[in-house]
């Protein structure tokens, strides 16, 4: 159930913009907020923009932003959390304290602050804002995994054979921590899609590109005349997040039997 949803989302994010019948920003004032027709399968939104094209462009944006933000967050999280746990001592104590403090503060508020202060927020700003808060979760998982693996026999054996610290970390410890990190990253993709939608909904998304959150914002404004806009955007967001969460559950059952 999860994988087909994720597959459909990934496919549409990659090829969608080529399939889109119109540009997501093409204005057609004569056909403002019209119902579905042969020319516009899902109807039109504000200023006669084709809803289907907006949804497809939104999939591309959500895919781009979530994959990039999660990749950056995983890298930073693994280096900070995993590295600190591997080194141990005072460094580890400080990193643990910072991640605890960062986790207790609402990430959406930090994201909002970063985007609101950018004069003209673009896709890059969005990815940066989401990564600033995103690494925390991965740092915690990586730290827990490294602490668990650090004293295992095969790690001691590698050290006894004279392997350098970085070799032990990257070749022996890290590969054994990928399972839980992949599970976390799958849920993280879902959370990032949701966060991107929330930020665009609040009007802080990249103004130039079409997004699901911005479409939902339009839909809320026209809720009484045409609930269609809100329904379309909501179904797209929900299906994607649900698919990623189900895939995360499935991965956890397969890769991480401890938590099952």
């Amino acid at each position, binding site marked *: 159930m999860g994988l087909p949803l994720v597959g459909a989302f990934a496919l549409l994010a990659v090829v969608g913009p080529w399939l889109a019948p119109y540009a997501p920003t093409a204005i057609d004032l004569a056909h403002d907020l019209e119902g579905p027709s042969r020319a516009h399968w899902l109807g039109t939104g504000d200023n006669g923009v084709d809803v289907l094209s907006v949804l497809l462009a939104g999939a591309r944006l959500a895919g781009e932003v979530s994959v990039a933000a999660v990749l950056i967050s995983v890298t930073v999280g693994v280096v900070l959390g995993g590295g600190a746990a591997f080194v141990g001592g005072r460094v580890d104590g400080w990193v643990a304290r910072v991640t605890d403090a960062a986790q207790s*503060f609402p990430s959406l*508020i930090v994201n909002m602050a970063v985007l*609101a*202060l950018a004069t003209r927020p673009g896709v890059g700003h969005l990815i940066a804002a989401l990564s600033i808060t995103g690494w925390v979760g991965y740092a915690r998982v990586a730290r827990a995994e490294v602490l668990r693996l650090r004293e295992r026999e095969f790690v001691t054996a590698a050290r006894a054979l004279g392997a350098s610290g970085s070799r032990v970390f990257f070749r022996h410890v890290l590969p054994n921590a990928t399972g839980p990190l992949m599970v976390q990253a799958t849920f993280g993709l879902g959370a990032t899609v949701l966060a991107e939608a929330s930020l665009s*909904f*609040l009007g802080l998304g990249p103004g130039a590109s079409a997004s699901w959150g911005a479409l939902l914002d339009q839909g809320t404004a026209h809720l009484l005349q045409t609930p269609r806009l809100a329904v379309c955007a909501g179904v797209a*967001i929900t299906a994607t997040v649900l698919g990623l969460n189900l895939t995360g559950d499935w991965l956890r059952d397969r890769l991480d039997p401890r938590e099952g």
Partner: protein
Amino acid sequence: MKLAGYLLRRLASGALTVLAVATLCFVTLHALPGDPTDVLLDETAGPEAREALRHALHLDAPIASRYEIFLREAVFSGMGRSWAHPDRSAVAAVLEVWPHTAALAASAMLVAWVIAVPMALLAATRPGTRTDAAVGVASLLGMALPSLWVGPMLVLAFCVALPWLPFPGPDASGPASMVLPSLTLGAGMAGILTRMGRGALREVLREPYVQTARAKGLSEPVVLVKHALRSAMVPLLTVGGSQLSALLGGAVVTERIFDRVGLGSLFLDSLLRRDIPVVMACVVGVAVTVVLVQIAVDLAYAVVDPRIRVSA
């Protein structure tokens, strides 16, 4: 006496956390490019007016002395005056809207617990049945459905199709106007708590002391509520406490959906107006709330589970 010492230690470390958050936020806000006077003054303002304003707001001072001013104002004058509305202090602006957001978050939390506990009991006592599966699907949906979509759909259902509740807007007030926002914000947390609660209860129900309670001839409701639910509460409280920051973040979105006054809208407006003192006051307000609730959650552990004692 022991409790007083514990509380003092926790409050002191909480104050340090708040100071750290405030400092981090101060550095970020002041390191970012852009001149706040661009937004605060209109385009016709000349360079002298701009320079005068920069001087009045201490923007021309080096960052270290600005930080000193910030700390002094934080202690003595309500974190300084709002730049956009100089007639009131930043803290006053936050305190004015804080009760609205606190009420929303509290009622959302209430909604989540009221939904989650019976659902978890229902599913945990009937493992493998259709009821169990239905609760599982419902909790997963509760977690995946974005509140920014649930909100508008609830409005369509209960304010338009079935006009039982007042249409949202700044004029809507009273308990009836709280129903849909609390449901919207609480649904996700209800899903998480249900899942966790079911798992925790399943584990507790296998414990020998539950068997003993049953063997003593206690009725099933007493066994479930007094013996099983009580120890299942510990992991639930942990999750509930850790969800608080997500709840406060979600409140921003919920306030926007339902066009409500609150910390979220104040924060967003102040950010866009570059009203830095109010932005800082909002951040500090959120941090203080999170710290205080965390302490309350840790105290609640000791109440729920007498095996846990408050200590360092």
